[in-house]
């Protein structure tokens, strides 16, 4: 298994830069072509998705020996499989004979991957296990081939498995460094063991992948895009109406919230936990579930951290992972104007079943395949994609909160809950990767 992936193609000479940061003018702008130009998309695939650390799956998706998942890393078809030693292997889902996909199912359990075309077979670690009718080949061919081409780097943190097609990336922990405290904060919502990712909801939308990445941390859009969802959830059939803007679901517009732009392109949208609204994150749950979860967190972490964990924090881990309360969201770019989103309910361990059941229900009602809230977000992305193809609107504005944002000792930029602070961190990292010379 000495074969290396070929290096990414050399970029085309693209006209100019995409991110325009003018501190003197307090403006931050991004070219619309960054969302609409297929050449930019190709560059993103080679310089971001196939060169840096990218989130692939949760450990619980391949919990047992023989469990596998077939997916993409960038645009490369891969298999993630757990072997009998407990290790998670990742390799190209491409037969070394004549290139057929060795695995056509998305998830399952197996002892071996056998290519359907001529029957070559590979172990859970990708090693070549058998060549059909092998004496028609040179005798040392199996040794020369070794097995499926390995994804050179696979590491996990708090149950989240990342991979990189670039063998020279730094250690995962070093790469994630500045965002680790926020991943910990999210992961601590599960007590004594990491979350279990349940069967995902899957969405597609006709728009660029970055719209979902940005929107996850956008505290500015809620009162418009989600006026409908919030009003419907506040609606008492047969009762008197609650004005949507009075409703607790508007948590992110509260003055107490903030946004955080984190070095490395990561970011957060936060609403601190006070316990007063008796919500878990943004989820309204029964008093019983709130009290039980609060008690379990307090026992595990102490009163102060428990309160903090009851708040809501959306975390974007650059480029394709969003952690939102009990939601793991992955972003899979298909083309410049088409994206898939997988949304997993993260089941907390160490808490009563009714807490998880209520939170699962809440998540699905708001953000599921037929969600009152999430569908209106996805609708924005199609509208956005329509707009970014227009000539004459060359730049979008990402300046909100720029004049007043603070920078702390950790190098984090801190803005108000409705500021575009985390987008600027995202785009600054994006530009560092895309605008670098080869």
């Amino acid at each position, binding site marked *: 298994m000495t074969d290396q992936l070929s290096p990414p193609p050399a970029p085309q000479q693209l006209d100019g830069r995409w991110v325009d940061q003018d501190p003197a003018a307090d403006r931050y702008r991004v070219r619309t072509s960054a969302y609409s130009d297929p050449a930019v998309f190709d560059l993103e695939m080679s310089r971001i998705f196939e060169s840096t650390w990218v989130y692939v799956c949760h450990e619980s998706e391949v919990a047992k020996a023989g469990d596998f998942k077939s997916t993409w890393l960038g645009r490369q078809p891969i298999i993630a499989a757990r072997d009998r030693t407990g290790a998670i292997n990742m390799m190209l889902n491409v037969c070394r004979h004549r290139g057929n996909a060795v695995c056509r199912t998305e998830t399952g359990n197996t002892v071996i991957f056998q290519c359907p075309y001529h029957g070559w077979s590979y172990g859970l670690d990708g090693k070549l296990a058998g060549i059909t009718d092998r004496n028609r080949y040179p005798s040392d061919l199996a040794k020369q081939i070794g097995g499926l081409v390995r994804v050179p780097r696979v590491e996990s943190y708090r149950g989240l498995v990342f991979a990189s097609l670039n063998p020279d990336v730094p250690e995962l922990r070093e790469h994630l460094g500045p965002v680790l405290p926020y991943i910990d904060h999210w992961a601590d919502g599960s007590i004594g063991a990491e979350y279990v990712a349940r069967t995902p909801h899957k969405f597609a939308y*006709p728009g660029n992948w970055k719209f979902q990445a940005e929107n996850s941390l956008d505290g500015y859009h809620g009162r418009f895009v989600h006026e409908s969802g919030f*009003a*419907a959830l506040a609606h008492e059939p047969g009762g008197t109406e609650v004005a949507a803007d009075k409703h607790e679901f508007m948590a992110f517009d509260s003055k107490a919230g903030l946004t955080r732009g984190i070095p490395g392109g990561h970011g957060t949208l936060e609403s601190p936990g006070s316990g007063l609204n008796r919500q878990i994150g943004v989820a309204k749950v029964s008093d019983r579930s709130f009290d039980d979860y609060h008690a379990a967190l307090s026992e595990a972490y102490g009163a102060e951290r428990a309160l903090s964990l009851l708040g809501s924090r959306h975390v974007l881990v650059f480029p394709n992972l969003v952690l939102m309360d009990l939601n793991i969201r992955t972003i899979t770019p298909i083309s410049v104007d088409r994206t*898939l989103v*997988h949304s997993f309910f993260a089941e907390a361990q160490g808490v009563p079943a009714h807490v998880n059941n209520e939170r699962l229900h809440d998540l699905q009602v708001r953000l599921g395949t*037929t969600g009152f809230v999430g569908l209106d977000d*996805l609708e924005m992305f*199609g509208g956005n994609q329509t707009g970014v193809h227009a000539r004459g609107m060359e730049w979008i504005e990402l300046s909100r909160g720029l004049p007043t944002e603070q920078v702390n000792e950790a190098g984090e930029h801190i803005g108000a809950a409705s500021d575009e602070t985390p987008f600027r961190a995202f785009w600054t990292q994006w530009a560092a990767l895309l605008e670098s010379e080869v």
Partner: protein
Amino acid sequence: MLSTALDPTYAQVATLLHREARLLDNLELDQWLELFLPHGVYCSPLGAACVDGEPVILLDDDRLRRQRVFRLLQTPAYAQRPASRTVRQVSNVEVELQADGQVAVECVVVIHEVRVGDERQYGLGTLRVLPTRTRYLLSPGPDGALLIARKEVVLLMREAPLENLSILL
């Protein structure tokens, strides 16, 4: 006992299914709500069937159903602005009378959907076909007419990424 096309129960079921399809196509959703019994369940699984505690595409009780209809009819639900037009076909209807007087129905419903507009705007004007196998449990309401105790819509495409599933199924 399996009911046949000549059976009065079968005719009653067919009338109910066709009426429901028309109400949904015409967005007469307040009337659609009244086809359900108060404890009625409206659901759609991610797997083969809705199972307690498993993630599902849809699981509405009376309250959520009414909130969903309120959202579609009385709030700016952008995923439905412009709104979808739909045409539903109901076929392959099998009806089974149960010992307790309830009626189990399994049928094929194919929903044809288009959001008004055309390809000059992303996401509009594309005809989408949503084939489903739909199961009902019907019970006589207060006046003896059959009402929906449970409606489970099993989408053919349930394991594929779905785009904007904001219409009622």
